[in-house]
């Protein structure tokens, strides 16, 4: 097994901000990565898409930074940056030459401490239109583009925080107001709801002093409103189905299973089973559907990595043009049933583990991606250092645990199929 220890030093500032330092002097660059524990799950009714719209507003300036100046200052310093929003978190990140570390900290601190003085109706209107164009680009004008919102809607009950659209509806985006911006900021963008990771080429004492100087005086928030109970039964209890007619040339099936949240012992079995089913051309789905039966052009499987309540294991298989949706679905289901019947082999487990290990080492090569992992583990699991246990936790999953897990969770009573069919032949597969 590949053994890699990422150095991790965690400190919590008096205002609740968790600071993680991880040194690596291989290249004179440094990553600053800030996770706010808020995502679309925290949106209130009638305001879907707000967490993501707010992420855009965070690049529109703060007390000492003009609109879009955050981008310009980081790029002028020779750095890269962006942010992203997910169901239960939002992240912001910069990677810069190491001597520019404090610039990134200052920019992040200025907007955490002093965002609202810079907000205007005009900026909100502009970003609302930008986001509407993002929705057109990634969802409405893209074959299969609605799967991002349809699959969670199918798999989580209507009142569940993961049920609704992350990018939001046009109607809700239109309804968002400047008051919503202020309220969201005061509620969630507080030091005690954030994790700040600095990874790369720095001196620890200097970096710690910089973080304290920039973030130390920001007051703690009033506390995050709790999410509703997100516990669900271990399985769907039925086979949920949805057929979507879309402007596509070939059917595509998303077959999802409810699994325990990321971090649970059984989640690691799901992660390896996902690789057995759908990582690489030698995986079961790819070998059977793409190579042998030639019904599909692509077949993969992955977990959503949700850390609250429950997660999803998803098989994503695209048919060859001309192959009927029903044929595709039957062939995928036959592979799942075969796995339930015959179990998995030691060779399949070893293959899955080897692929995981290479991906893991590759995934910590850049300081930016390493910092993001550390923030993720601190936010979701409460301890960034747990990242170093990931390879061992995967390696600890034996064949029996994988088979037991498959038999408990891949049954017909725990399936959700979202099936895209070309508009012209709609109805054939239903």
């Amino acid at each position, binding site marked *: 097994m*590949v053994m*890699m220890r990422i150095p991790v030093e965690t400190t919590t500032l008096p205002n609740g901000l968790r600071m993680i330092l991880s040194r690596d002097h291989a*290249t*004179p*660059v440094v990553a600053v990565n800030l996770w706010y524990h808020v995502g679309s799950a925290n949106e209130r009714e009638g305001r879907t898409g707000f967490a993501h719209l707010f992420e855009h507003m965070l690049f529109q300036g703060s007390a*000492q930074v003009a609109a*879009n100046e955050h*981008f310009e200052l980081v*790029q002028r*310093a*020779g*750095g890269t940056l962006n942010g992203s929003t997910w169901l239960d978190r939002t992240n912001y990140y910069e*990677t810069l*030459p*190491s*001597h520019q*570390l404090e*610039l990134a900290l*200052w920019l992040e*601190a200025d907007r955490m*401490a*002093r965002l609202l003085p810079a907000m205007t109706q005009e900026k909100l209107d502009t970003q609302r*239109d*930008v*986001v*509407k*164009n*993002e929705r*057109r*680009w990634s969802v*409405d*004008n893209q*074959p299969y583009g609605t799967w991002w919102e349809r699959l969670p809607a199918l798999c989580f009950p209507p009142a569940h925080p993961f049920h609704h659209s992350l990018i939001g509806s046009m109607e809700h985006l239109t309804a968002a107001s400047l008051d919503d911006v202020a309220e969201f900021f005061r509620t969630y963008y507080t030091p005690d709801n954030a994790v700040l990771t600095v990874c790369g*080429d720095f001196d620890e004492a200097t970096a710690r002093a*910089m973080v304290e100087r*920039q973030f130390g*005086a*920001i007051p703690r928030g009033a506390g995050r409103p709790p999410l509703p109970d997100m516990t669900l039964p271990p399985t769907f209890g039925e086979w949920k189905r949805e057929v979507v007619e879309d402007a*596509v*040339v*070939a059917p595509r099936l998303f077959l999802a299973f409810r699994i325990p949240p990321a971090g649970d012992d059984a989640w690691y079995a799901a992660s390896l089973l996902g690789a057995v089913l759908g990582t*690489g*051309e*030698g995986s079961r789905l790819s070998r059977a559907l*793409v*190579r042998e039966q030639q019904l599909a*052009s692509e077949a993969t499987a992955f977990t959503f990595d949700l850390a609250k309540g429950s997660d999803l294991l998803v098989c994503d298989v*695209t048919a*060859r*043009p001309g192959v009927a949706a029903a044929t595709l679905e039957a062939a995928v289901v036959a592979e799942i049933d075969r796995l339930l019947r015959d179990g998995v082999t030691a060779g399949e487990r070893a*293959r899955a583990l*080897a*692929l995981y*290990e*290479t991906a893991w*080492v*590759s995934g*910590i*090569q*850049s300081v930016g991606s390493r910092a993001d992992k550390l923030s993720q583990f601190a936010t979701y699991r409460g301890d960034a250092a747990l990242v170093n246990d990931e390879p061992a936790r995967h390696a600890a999953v034996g064949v029996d645990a994988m088979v037991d897990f498959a038999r408990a969770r891949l049954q017909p009573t725990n399936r959700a199929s979202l099936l895209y069919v070309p508009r012209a032949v709609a109805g054939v597969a239903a």
Partner: protein
Amino acid sequence: MSAPARPSPGTARPYEFPAVHRHALANGLRLVVAPMPRLPLVTVLALVDAGAATEATGREGIATLTARTLAEGAGALDGATLTARFESLGTAFDGSADWDSSLARLTVTRSRLEAAFALFAAVLTQPTFPEADVARRRDERLAELAQQLAEPRGLADERFSGFLHARECRYARDLAGTAHSVAGLDAVAVRAFHAAHYGPRTTTVVVVGDITPEAAQRLAEQAFGGWTGGRAPAPMPAPRAAREGRRLVVVEKAEAPQSELRVGHIGVPRAHPDYLPIVVMNGILGGLFSSRINLNLRERHAFTYGASSGYDWRRGAGPFVVSTAVKSEVTDRAVVEILREIDAMRTAAPTASEVSLATEYLAGVFPIRYETTAAVAGALAGATMFGLPAEWFSTYRARIRAVTPDDVLAAARAHLDPARALVLAVGDAAVIEGPLAALGIAPVERHASEDDPAEAP
């Protein structure tokens, strides 16, 4: 709470691109090794002088199909067995073709390198190309093409190339071949292409990561030392535009909520002496988030989620293109703004601040871009492909910082030309055609989404 003032930068720490070691085997194969011992990981890449640009008419896609079929059988091992062996080593063989080279690569953990390297070499030197597997890969390519043309972005990119280049020019057709050309390819053609072009004299093997030059040399001698054959393909004639002057094409995509816009013309070859000023010029125009085009279309007008421009660098002159997707109703206004920004770039020199933003960004991100073994291997492969001098990477940052506003203006005047722009919109013709025609920049040529200009009778 007092607000800390904007901090000044500390002292820059020195950066060195990984040291590069070169070696040639007795049979002519070139080996390039860059040790990066920070993590137990190695990327292996083979670059073969067998790119798509020189494919014969009617055979477009043969370089891609050959590369994608390499691992479908080697010596006594069949494709399924090879896949299983690679994956049991935690890696996958990735074969592809670019305009100027065919490429094979894998990334593997150090302890599994020897076994993976031997398999990698076997796949390159003794592929069997079984008929059934070549046929399957061919059909997969046809499926991929159908998916690409069903996507507004894929369709716009494909049609832009098709309308831009003269029909007899290879660049008018997709890198991986068209439905028409790919349908005619088979195992006989693939075997012939491999036999003609793959060999030690046309191949460079790049090894980057946790390995010494001596160890890489030993591996290469063992695995490739006995290889023979291969000749470089004939050079491609210079690319030609389909037509002189400005052109306006609407490709119909009924009820599309957005128009995919492509505006540009034929650019310059990668080896052009103006390469660095062009890169800086493009950064200011549309290459950066804070570029003129993105700030105009996204932040000022909110027409789009994003807009960018770029040169597609090849041995021949590839396209220069501005790409964006805008709400259908503002298609005409977006075209006006794009043409205006291209024109403004040639009218006056950019400010010193604009130039320093681009040069400081490009120089600064250089070490960030090359943190991974795969990225360094890719850069070294590119340097080989384009024949860049050995000191390219060690001098890049100083040379990019030396570019001046006058250099940028000269590059824009020499290499941007809105008068010969092809303006292409994939969108809802019922909404966009009238306003586009009213601009009066060129007559509207309207096409159905199926009309492939490169394949037209």
